């Protein structure tokens, strides 16, 4: 199948791909042309069918119908081995690395090429060194993978693909786990790869990334390709509109906060692990009624641990915090159930691991954390019909789709799963809401909705502690912003003082003393 003369050579050509899972038509007549040597983005909301499409391309699923051409040749891709043989490499959202192997062992795993590990290791080492040099992907081959930061682990994934001779690299939501700095580095690597002639297919739902790095972009919505655009000739607003099928507000309607009495006061909270690593150091903060306090920081600097301690999942090792009249200390720890009864609701950072239970029905996930039967709905028994009625109400209030309380939580899209969690936590009318990454992996329409809900809750007098790695989110929602670095609060900015540069410096721990402002951090603010 030769291409037309005038068109550039195509690395990938998909035509009329269809794939259904039961009643769900995940891909409908999807066409895609990826020009060789370009960085091509596929953008779409969660559940738009992006991941299904690349899974078909990489041989994880077989398409129900449609044609795949790689470098102009129509091929059948039945297994990932077929894809690899045709020069396709994939970097998964969740890395496929053996954590206790070295970088070298991970790279050569499955491609040893000889019975002797020693001999293949030697061959792999020289190949790896060459790749590292050619593409500027420096990684120490003898380091154990689990000791590497996430950004470098991803680099190992890329090296693994290149080592297997990939000329087409698929990256599925590669920046979801990266810090802003690591994202920058990834983009540099991708540029370098393109210089070397590698074709890159980037799957993301982040507009910024598409604009920053791609040459072409395809937009998916509801299982269909809705547009193919040249990145230079489009705008974030246009892409956003194509993704959701309507215009979206990227800014939140944020009014002046009217903070009231303190709801929670923390004094010198510390958390030290069993092997002596300080995860939280002397954290003091006060949260008041009717304000949103954002916690900015590069992920892994203690924000998650702060949420765990304040929600009662982990006991502090020193210091204390007070909710209402209850004092929680290392000696008198609490638990999530007690804190919930004190009016502390918690939207966890990882909704799949904690926020919902995937095989449970939506109605069952809707009472997670509130199932013990204390308070208004006591007793030993659960009535499914009652749960379902309550769930149906919440689904209507929070526009959760599909509005089916019996549907397994796993079958909702990321945004709707997050809405289930939010609906559950907000509808208890909490005094304090702890929120971790409220919009991680959530599509634009849902982000807007979730932001509005948080503002509305604040206006009703709830205190909100917002932890997010999205600086935009922190800046557009928060009334005050605390910055964490290395387990410590390194500064506080008011809403007006905050800008990306200033926050970025503080997050990096550079010149923290210089940027702490007059409205000092701590309990007295």
């Amino acid at each position, binding site marked *: 199948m030769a291409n037309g003369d005038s068109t550039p050579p195509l690395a990938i050509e998909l035509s009329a791909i269809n794939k259904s*899972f*039961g009643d769900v038509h995940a891909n409908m007549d999807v066409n895609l042309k990826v020009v060789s040597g370009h960085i091509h983005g596929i953008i779409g909301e969660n559940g738009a069918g992006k991941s299904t499409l690349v899974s078909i391309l990489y041989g*994880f*699923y077989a398409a*129900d119908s449609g044609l795949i051409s790689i470098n102009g040749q129509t091929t059948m891709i039945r297994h990932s081995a077929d894809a690899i043989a045709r020069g396709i490499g994939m970097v998964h959202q969740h890395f496929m690395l053996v954590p206790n192997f070295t970088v070298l062992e991970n790279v050569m795993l499955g491609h040893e090429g000889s019975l002797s590990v020693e001999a293949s290791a030697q061959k792999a080492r020289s190949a790896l060194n060459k790749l590292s040099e050619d593409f500027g992907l420096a990684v120490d081959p003898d380091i154990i993978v689990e000791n590497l930061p996430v950004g470098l682990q991803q680099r190992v994934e890329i090296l693994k693909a290149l080592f297997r001779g990939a000329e087409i690299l698929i990256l599925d939501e590669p920046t979801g786990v990266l810090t802003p700095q690591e994202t920058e580095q990834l983009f540099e690597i991708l540029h370098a790869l393109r210089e070397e002639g590698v074709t890159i297919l980037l799957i993301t739902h982040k507009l910024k990334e598409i604009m920053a790095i791609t040459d072409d972009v395809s937009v998916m919505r509801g299982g269909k390709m809705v547009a193919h655009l040249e990145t230079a000739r489009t705008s974030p607003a246009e892409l956003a509109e194509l993704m959701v099928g309507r215009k979206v507000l990227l800014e939140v309607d944020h009014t002046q906060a009217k903070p009231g009495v303190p709801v929670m006061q923390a004094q010198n909270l510390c958390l030290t692990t069993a092997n002596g690593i300080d995860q939280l150091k002397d954290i003091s903060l006060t949260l008041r009624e009717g304000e949103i306090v954002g916690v900015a920081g590069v992920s892994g600097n203690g924000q998650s641990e702060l949420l765990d301690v304040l*929600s*009662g*999942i982990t006991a502090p090792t020193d210091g204390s915090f007070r909710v209402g009249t209850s004092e929680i200390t290392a000696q008198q720890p609490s*638990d*999530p*159930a*007690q*804190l*919930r009864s004190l009016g502390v609701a*918690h939207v*966890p950072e*990882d909704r799949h*691991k*904690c*926020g*919902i*239970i*995937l*095989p*449970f029905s939506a109605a*069952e996930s809707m*009472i*997670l*954390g509130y*199932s*013990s*039967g204390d308070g208004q709905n006591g*007793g*030993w*028994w*659960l*009535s*499914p019909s009652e749960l379902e009625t309550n769930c149906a109400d919440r689904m209507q209030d929070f526009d959760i789709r599909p509005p089916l309380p019996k549907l397994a939580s796993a079958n909702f899209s990321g945004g709707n799963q997050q809405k289930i969690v939010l609906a559950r936590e907000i509808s208890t009318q909490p005094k304090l809401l702890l929120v971790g990454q409220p919009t991680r992996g959530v599509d634009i329409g849902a982000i807007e909705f979730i932001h509005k809900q948080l503002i509305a809750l604040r206006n009703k007098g709830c205190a909100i502690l917002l932890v997010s790695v999205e600086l935009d989110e922190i800046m557009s929602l928060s009334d005050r912003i605390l910055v964490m670095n290395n387990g410590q609060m390194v500064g506080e900015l008011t809403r007006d003082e905050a800008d990306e540069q200033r926050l970025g410096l503080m997050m990096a721990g550079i010149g923290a003393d210089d940027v702490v402002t007059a409205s000092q951090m701590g309990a007295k603010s």
Partner: protein
Amino acid sequence: MTPPPALPRWADVGLIPLINVLAALVVSGIVVAVIGENPFEAMMVMIKGAFVYKGSLGYTLYYATNFIFTGLAVAVAFHAMLFNIGGEGQAYLGGLGAGLTCLMFDSMFPALILVPLAIMASASFGAVWGAIPGYLQAKRGSHIVITTIMFNFLAASIMVWLLAGRLKAPGQMSPETRSFSANAELPFIHDIVNAFGVEMARSPLNLSFVVALLACVGVWVLIWRSRLGYAIRATGHSTGAAEYAGIPVSTIIIITMAISGGLAGMMAINEILGVQHRTILGFTSGYGFTGIAVALMGRNHPIGIILASLLFGALYQGGAELDFEFSTITREMVLLIQGLIILFSGGLAFMFNRPLAHLLGLLLAARSAKGGQNG
């Protein structure tokens, strides 16, 4: 390796176990043919032996009673993602509980008090024997599979020690307690039915079967209708979510293992109170282990467990008949058939998922294509 494709629920729950059993029977049939017997004839003998001959149904249900208890035990633990291999030992200890209660009180209390007391004792002894590994798992991190297996051996040793020693009836050689008085007996079903003037052949089937069915209802209510069951399932599906929710995970593990052990312990009432009327050595004879296959095949649901128990009960009873009818087919042959069923419905439980999913997919595609042409 991609995960097996999703099957519709009816196929997963209904069709797959059926196909597994059929596959096991086909292989068994081949083996029967190889040793020179007619497999269809053998099959007929088994079915007749399990359901048709006089009293055979009673025997089948009597075996099924044991499997229901041990199957429920495995299922309850499995909902908390705990693999309780210790049903055998828990049932054995349950027999000790029932036995001790009867030895102590059988001349004191009437049946209406003694039998419930003995049932509670068997459940409590089994519960303790299950809860200890539960505690070790929850608080000490010892893996439940290892500890429950070891507790089977501990239970066996304790029972040998007691039955050959302190509990052995004076003046006799066999390692068993004295016979209990009639106060400790669970009535036979044929006695009850005959009392109503309906003719029924004698069999060891006793009121424990009804208790087993009640236990099924109880387990269903516990798992799907109670807050405790919610906590058990939440713990089983996602420890992280349970911790986030403030569910006391360690406590739930211990409670679940206690319930599981209690159910296994209740198996003893069928043998001790229902049939033997004394505690004897080795009365559990592997029912506890078969419970694992029963739960697996019954998809950890009480209804599935009842059906799987019936199948295994029929195999036990029909198998005995097979042994009786054919000189070439021995007891070992029957064990082989049981083994094949356990292999196909347990070890190879998901072997047919993928082909079946493909087949169903093709059928659906063909049907929708047809519909498309018509429409």
